[in-house]
């Protein structure tokens, strides 16, 4: 990705837009919804929000024009230049112009207005063209884009978040009590420390909490402490669960109804996906914890006092689930915050406690503090 020279960006998170006039190629409401959808693409991965105004000067003025239209960049009739836009700033800056000699369409039979608008609004927010052919900000229009599964590329997300940062935690999260307006940095040796999720990753153990994670290698006593976004900018903070499928070198991260797949620091394309694609019933709104049982090639998903078993080979849920956690993991639960596997034991976290569980003997072998791995 590239930003404009001098990195111009909007110094506020709430922006206004105005559709100054309309193309006759599409019904007005189709133009309205294409523009709204195109702005939402960026809204979903940044703290930015957009609202429409109908008069006066908006931050992003949207016009359809042909040939010479008052700025020094004439349009050129059908084909070739489809539209252009200006980087953030006052006046014409931030505005987007669309060549009305094109045939604008809702699908890809002509020039798709949503796709071109989403690209131009990338400029309006401060992104230049990207060399990545997969990126929305690649300069050449790709008529074969599958609109149904359209997604920003990682390059686009990294780019826009380099200007505005990731979105705040989603509003439908349970609101966590916080003493002060600024998110706190969790204290590693706080005896009351609870964790969001724990997973292994290529031989290390990652302990996630709010916007950060501790990274523990078995070679060092003390863990490193990092911002999640410094490794995975597009991942949410305050995740629910995480587990590693070691045989595929993939870590799955869960938050709410969505889950992501990462390989090292690369978020895999095609994510996030909905958790219901894994076979959960609609009543499941989030996952509490998950762990991959390597010998059995099964993944256990813990949700409140129940758990599901997922067959990683068949890529489907085993029949006969959910079951009560306490039935098959005596001593564990009723609720689990996080779980991971080490030395053949499952380590279950609940609040500030941690249980070492022997899956073969089916019994808790030790009760520990949640931060016992940090050598406080």
């Amino acid at each position, binding site marked *: 990705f590239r930003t404009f020279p001098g990195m111009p960006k909007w110094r506020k998170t709430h922006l206004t837009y105005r559709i100054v006039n309309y193309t006759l190629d599409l019904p007005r409401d189709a133009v309205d919804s294409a523009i709204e959808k195109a702005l939402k693409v960026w809204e979903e991965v940044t703290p930015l929000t957009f609202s429409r105004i109908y008069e006066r000067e908006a931050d992003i003025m949207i016009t359809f024009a042909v040939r010479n239209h008052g700025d020094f960049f004439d349009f050129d009739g059908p084909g070739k230049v489809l539209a252009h836009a200006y980087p953030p700033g006052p006046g014409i800056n931030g505005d987007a112009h669309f060549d009305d000699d094109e045939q604008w369409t809702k699908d890809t039979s002509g020039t798709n207005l949503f796709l071109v608008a989403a690209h*131009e609004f990338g400029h309006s927010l401060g992104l230049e063209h990207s060399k990545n052919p997969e990126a929305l900000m690649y300069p050449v229009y790709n008529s074969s884009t599958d609109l149904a599964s359209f997604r920003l590329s990682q390059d686009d997300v990294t780019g826009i978040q380099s200007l505005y940062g990731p979105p705040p935690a989603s509003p439908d999260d349970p609101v966590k009590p916080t003493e002060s307006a600024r998110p706190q940095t969790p204290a590693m040796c706080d005896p009351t420390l609870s964790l969001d999720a724990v997973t292994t990753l290529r031989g290390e153990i990652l302990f996630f909490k709010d916007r950060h994670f501790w990274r523990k290698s078995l070679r060092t006593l003390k863990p490193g402490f990092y911002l999640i976004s410094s490794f995975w900018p597009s991942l949410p903070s305050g995740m629910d669960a995480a587990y590693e499928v070691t045989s595929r070198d993939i870590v799955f991260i869960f938050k709410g109804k969505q889950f992501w797949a990462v390989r090292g620091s690369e978020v895999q394309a095609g994510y996030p996906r909905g958790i219901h694609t894994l076979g959960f019933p609609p009543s499941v709104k989030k996952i509490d914890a998950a762990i991959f049982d390597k010998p059995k090639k099964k993944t256990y998903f813990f949700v409140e006092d129940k758990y599901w078993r997922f067959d990683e080979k068949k890529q489907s849920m085993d029949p006969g689930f959910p079951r009560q956690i306490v039935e098959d993991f005596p001593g564990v639960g009723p609720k689990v915050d996080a779980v991971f596997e080490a030395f053949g034991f499952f380590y279950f976290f609940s609040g500030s406690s941690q249980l070492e569980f022997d899956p073969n003997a089916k019994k808790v072998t030790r009760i520990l503090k949640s931060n016992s791995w940090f050598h406080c």
Partner: protein
Amino acid sequence: HPLNGAARDEEDSMDLVQHYLEDYYNLAKDAKQFAKRKDSSPVVKKIQEMQKFLGLKVTGKLDSDTLQVMHKPRCGVPDIRE
């Protein structure tokens, strides 16, 4: 479109190439006829820059892939500016 006469095509292409390199890759405007200078090093350099940016094979020549991309619809914001 049905094929035009070849000579006409050639002329059209040179126009398109010149404008493409001037508008998006900051080729300096020059009064000399573009067809005569298309093999000159400044123009070759710009063609290479464009091919590199757009992920094409970097040949410095106006091969068919390069011409094909230049004909594709695109955004009017320059790829490389001063």
